[in-house]
């Protein structure tokens, strides 16, 4: 097990290094610079170059990379060129929106997907199972922005029950913050459920045909008991992988939901900063997400080892 963990850690560090270089080069490869964006079309190249110089953007690329990565390793994520705000502060403020949004959306998705997916697997080949499969397919096909706009129009504009968008900070009103999140979470959760139902259904179908489930039934368990006590733990393996990937995607990938509902989350912040070529903000934020994603993957890999002894033996 120790070798298994060491291998995974080495892969983890290598992946981080490659990601840091890729992030650094990609944002620069997109062209443009923040000085030109700030000064707009009326500025002379001399003025733009002078501002770029004060931002340190005219230094050699290698110097900029090692400066950035060195600061990151010492815990300094850098500062916004335009406002001089600390990237750590910017990210922390946005996470108070993005984390509740992502996790609540995922939990809602799982709460719907696990029972519905299991039900669909148990009733495969029946009209109700086919109906659920159809509904989940439609859910997968529905663009998340469309679901968001419809929910906003129904619950916000027509019924007036919930805000159509906007954000009330937790420090101002926790209840207001929850109200701000209901429709975005609902949009995200419903779409996520549609995706996860298919995985749950497929995983449960897979274990239902396994010998150990037949053995469980042979020793006197009912079909439901066998599924709950023996089958679900085995079906959980692929689901854990998918959920891990979904969490990672959700933290930085809710830009559409955040835009439709005008939430000041991490994704929207990143989009605005990519457009403005705020390279330090973008690099540090993306790097944090990469660290998070790769850490989740590492945890998932280690969980595999714990959940299934065969994984430890074969890897």
């Amino acid at each position: 097990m120790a070798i298994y963990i060491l291998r995974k850690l080495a892969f983890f560090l290598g992946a981080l290094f490659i990601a840091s270089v890729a992030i650094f080069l990609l944002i620069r490869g997109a062209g443009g610079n923040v000085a030109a964006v700030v000064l707009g079309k009326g500025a002379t190249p001399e003025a733009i170059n002078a501002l770029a110089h004060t931002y340190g953007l005219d230094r050699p690329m290698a110097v900029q990379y090692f400066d950035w990565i060195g600061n990151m390793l010492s815990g300094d994520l850098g500062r916004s060129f335009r406002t001089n705000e600390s990237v750590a502060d910017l990210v922390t403020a946005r996470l108070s929106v993005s984390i509740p949004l992502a996790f609540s959306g995922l939990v809602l998705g799982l709460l719907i997907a696990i029972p519905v997916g299991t039900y669909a697997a148990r009733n495969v080949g029946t009209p109700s199972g086919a109906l659920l499969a159809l509904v989940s397919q439609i859910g997968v096909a529905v663009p998340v922005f469309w679901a968001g706009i419809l929910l906003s129009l129904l619950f916000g504009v027509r019924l007036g029950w919930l805000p159509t968008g906007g954000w009330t900070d937790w420090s101002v009103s926790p209840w207001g913050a929850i109200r701000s999140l209901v429709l975005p979470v609902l949009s995200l959760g419903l779409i996520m459920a549609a995706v996860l139902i298919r995985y749950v259904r497929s995983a449960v179908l897979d274990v239902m045909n396994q010998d150990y489930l037949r053995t469980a039934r042979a020793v006197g368990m009912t079909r439901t008991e066998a599924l709950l006590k023996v089958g679900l733990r085995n079906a959980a393996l692929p689901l854990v992988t998918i959920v891990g990937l979904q969490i990672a995607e959700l933290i930085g990938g809710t830009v559409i939901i955040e835009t439709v509902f005008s939430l000041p989350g991490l994704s929207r912040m990143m989009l605005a900063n990519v457009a403005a070529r705020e390279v330090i903000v973008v690099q540090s934020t993306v790097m944090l997400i990469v660290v998070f994603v790769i850490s989740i993957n590492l945890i998932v890999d280690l969980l595999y080892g714990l959940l299934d002894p065969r994984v430890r033996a074969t890897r």
Partner: protein
Amino acid sequence: MREKMHLITQRLGLLTAAAALFAGALGGAATLAEAASSRAAENKMVLVARQDPGTLDFVKSNLTAMRLWIPANVVEPLVYFNKDGSVSPGVAESWTISDDKKTYTFKIREAKFSNGAPVTAEDVIYSLNTMKASPVVDYAAAYEAVTAIDKVDDRTVKVTLSRPSQNFWQGMGAISGLIQPEASAGTIATNPIGTGPYKLASYTTNSTFEFEANPTYWGEAPPVKNVTVRIITDGTAGLNALEAGEVDALPVITIDLWEQLSKRELDKKYSLVTYPQVGEPTYAVLNQKLDKDLRETIAKTLDRQSYNDAFGAAWGAENTCTFALPNQVWYSPESPETCPFPYDMEGAMATIAEKGYASTPLEYASLSDVPDLSLPADIMVPAMQAAGFNVTRNAIDLARYSQLIFQGRPPQFDVTIMSGDANPVQFACPDPSKAGWSTYCSPEYTKALADADVALTQEDYVAKMKQAADILRKDAVIVPLIAKKGVGLFNPDLKGFEEPRVNVAIELNKLHW
């Protein structure tokens, strides 16, 4: 099986009902009237901004998203130029102009900045020198004739010019004339300080501006004490918020929403205002390196009415061949007298065939992330292709566009479309080596502008500006298409909107319930 289906239907019904009950418990139905009146009773209002400026540093940034909210509300200029042409005091309570118009003496008001510090002559000198050194050319241009900025006494500042300059005087009522305390310069990007009727309580990027009435304001306290400006980048979401009664106004509605606004009949439910100051001319830019006949032929493929129709709201824009807005006296709508190259598709096709322009590859640089500009490009490129031009559209985002065109020397385009400030001085160019992003350079045009700048009378100034506008349109580099007006939607109970005086700034203290 039917029982199972019935069970599922029952459970789904229960879930829906539960969701409805849950949503109901979170808040009662808010009608527009209730929401608006509750904010009125609390002396608040909520407005919508479509763009996040990212920085509030008005010295370094000329982004409209910043200029809408900070000037006039938080940071004031020395003077205000009113719609009727009169001049009102700002940070300067009075002023004198020498007979030769080369010396301006400003008496500084006894007032305090919103941080409690008194306004001093040193602050005014610092502010003017800072704007003089601004990297934003339009702001610094006001100081071209300034030779000295001196303190006369604790409350008097004298500005000496090498020649009369209309640009300087106009600039003192615009962003070039904004006054800030030197001690707070370090926080200008997130918390600018000034003497205006409001102070900025907080600015959260991509979320909100929170304004509070400035307790140290020298004038009458603003009628609405607290103002929230929500940054809603999705236009439909902004209109939804207005319709749901969550916000009270969208003072600036971009052109991409005009059609939706009409279709949803929001212009009937709310007070629609149109005003030229926040408007922008939309114009094609034809690289001056192209042959003049070729530029004129491209200009003839521009059907101004088709651009106006595309935006779906006749009240929002006028067809024009003059680089100006309707509030500028040298403006004129499209007419045979003012359009040197009117729409003439057949004529253009004949010239293309005759001169073989089809073999000249043209690159059309199109800003992909600005709807106001990608929509006209959708019309212009096919029209040019239909006429027979060999034109390729290169769609790029703002940062890349800034690099290739605004910053590029020479700029990397043959044809593009732009919209922005109607300040004709931006195209002044005394020497082709100093041509700006638009590539336009005309000594004749620049001289006409310089003559206007030193004009001693308003009549002379207007005559010279008209002459300059005529030179510009005949050169077929800057080809105006439409003059877009500023368009806003307000809750009918929210009254008092006045057209901006300091560039495009929405003056919040004029609004009241």
